[in-house]
């Protein structure tokens, strides 16, 4: 397929922002506060951060909020605003697809789908990476178009942008501001992308895991794991959730909230029996789910190489190092 490629001048981004606002779209973009960059409602263009390698949290809560009401009345589409998700890294944009495959295999999860149906994704290619990044080891790359409706790649620091219009939803945005999307004379974005060396082969890891369930490696790797669940909370593809009911007099609500397979009570039975009763079994579940069970059941990997889990881990467990050691260790 020929991708429609346009030039967006550096100064046009702010105009685009204003036009989107005039068209009553909410814009969720990376905002910096207290040294952290997280997606939030951007009221003005100048509040949007740039220069970040990765936001602290992924963008997944746009369709899968940390706490979501599961009103028994159903979800009213009119209550969900049209949103432009601005400044999403390609690994996060890829993660939305992986999340969708979980929510849509077999039963279709309308709550998730309704929220996502209101989202247009503006991906921004990476010009910088850090030692935690490993998208190229799991099939991605710093300029990957997967999951974005429009992918912007900046021609060097302070330069103009290449805009790849990837979907119908992207075309609609161009339709709102056609003058800002000029014809592009160059479409070579490769030299402006971050260098992320390949560290392991995810297909080899997958094959290895078929015979790895009983390995002692799981114990070694998870000895220091606190079971805090931070890795799951920052992960763009972790979808495990809990359902809780709350009642306040006649007003009640059923909510779903993020959960983690790393928590000791996640699989605890009422009887006291716990199928995954030690942290190593829970760590194994995390890796197996993303690199073995998901590829087999859903034909996608549950990891985009964003590296957030390693950045967030309070005891410095590093998923990249652990995956490399799984690849290297003999069964």
């Amino acid at each position: 397929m020929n991708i429609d490629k346009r030039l967006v001048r550096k100064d046009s981004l702010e105009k685009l922002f204003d036009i989107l606002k005039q068209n009553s779209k909410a814009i969720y973009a990376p905002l910096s506060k207290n040294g952290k960059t997280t997606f939030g409602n951007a009221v003005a263009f100048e509040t949007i951060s740039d220069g970040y390698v990765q936001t602290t949290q992924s963008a997944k809560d746009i369709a899968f909020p940390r706490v979501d009401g599961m009103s028994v009345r159903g979800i009213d589409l009119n209550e969900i605003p049209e949103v432009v998700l601005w400044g999403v890294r390609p690994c996060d944009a890829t993660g939305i697809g992986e999340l969708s495959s979980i929510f849509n295999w077999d039963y279709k999860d309308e709550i998730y789908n309704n929220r996502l149906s209101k989202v247009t994704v503006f991906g921004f290619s990476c010009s910088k990476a850090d030692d935690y990044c490993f998208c190229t080891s799991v099939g991605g790359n710093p300029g990957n178009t997967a999951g974005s409706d429009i992918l912007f790649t900046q021609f060097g620091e302070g330069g103009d942008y290449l805009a790849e219009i990837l979907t119908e939803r992207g075309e609609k945005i161009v339709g709102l501001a056609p003058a800002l999307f000029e014809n592009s004379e160059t479409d070579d974005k490769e030299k402006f992308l971050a260098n992320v060396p390949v560290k392991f082969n995810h297909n080899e890891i997958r094959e290895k895991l078929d015979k790895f369930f009983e390995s002692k490696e799981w114990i070694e790797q998870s000895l220091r794991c606190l079971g805090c669940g931070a890795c799951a909370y920052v992960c763009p593809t972790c979808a495990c959730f809990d359902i809780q009911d709350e009642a306040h007099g006649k007003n009640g609500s059923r909510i779903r909230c993020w959960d983690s397979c790393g928590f000791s009570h996640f699989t605890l039975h009422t009887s006291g029996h716990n199928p995954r009763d030690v942290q190593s079994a829970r760590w194994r579940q995390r890796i197996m789910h993303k690199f073995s069970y998901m590829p087999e059941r859903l034909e996608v990997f549950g990891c985009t190489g964003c590296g957030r889990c390693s950045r967030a881990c309070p005891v410095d467990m590093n998923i990249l190092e652990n995956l490399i050691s799984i690849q290297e260790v003999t069964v």
Partner: protein
Amino acid sequence: MMDNLYMPYLMKIERITHEAPGVKTFMLKFVNEADQEKFTYKAGQFGEYSVYGVGESTFCIASPPTRKGYIECTFRQTGKVTNALSGCEEGSMIGFRGPYGNVFPIDEWKGKSLLFIAGGIALPPMRCVIWNALDMRENFKDVTIIYGARTVKDLVYKEELKDWELRKDVKLITTVDPGGESPDWKGEIGFVPTIVEKIAPSSEDTIAIVCGPPVMIKYTFPVLDKLGFTDDNIYTTLENRMKCGFGKCGRCNVGKVYVCKDGPVFTLAQLKELPDEY
């Protein structure tokens, strides 16, 4: 408004039966007739039962699909939701969503003998398929039920046990753990695996369905193996913790298998393929 997978049906508790200490059966009717009309299920499936403001709990549907117009569930008062359920009275409203999960392939069993082996509070998931089979009794050869509990008091469905005992087309053996017998107890005394070994039911052309606490299941499988049952002809159910019931929330999986989608019914052959994480 869109369909919401998580929206429960509103159910009215028609009748409450006290089965054993802490164990109750609810007969539930759909408040909305349209819900009743479109609702279908098969033996082996389960649902999420909820009390307003407290939460949801997972149990099987304990009544057979051959009885129309209502469903039943049997539960033991153990946690937050079952405590709240236990406090409900006849006429109260609760929520139910389902049915979820796979089924006992009862149509494939036609022409064979059936051997049901249950322990304690695990008779409810089996009661659905027992009644389903008895309601089409002419399709099966011998029907044998071996049911054990810790004490005589802990046996559930006492009225139905009497019923099955009187039927000429059902062979019922009840047992209680040593020390759990009452002075007038006429059944067997001993753990379920021991009694299965003692009764030694024939494995010829027979399907065995085994539900019970893990320790009972663990010691019953080798006895069945000795009696000549193949792994393909032994069925059981897994009861992992669940929230959604349809493969999203991520907690009931055993390896790549979702108990809520691929189960809860498994053959022993399928179980042996799974990692030991259930």
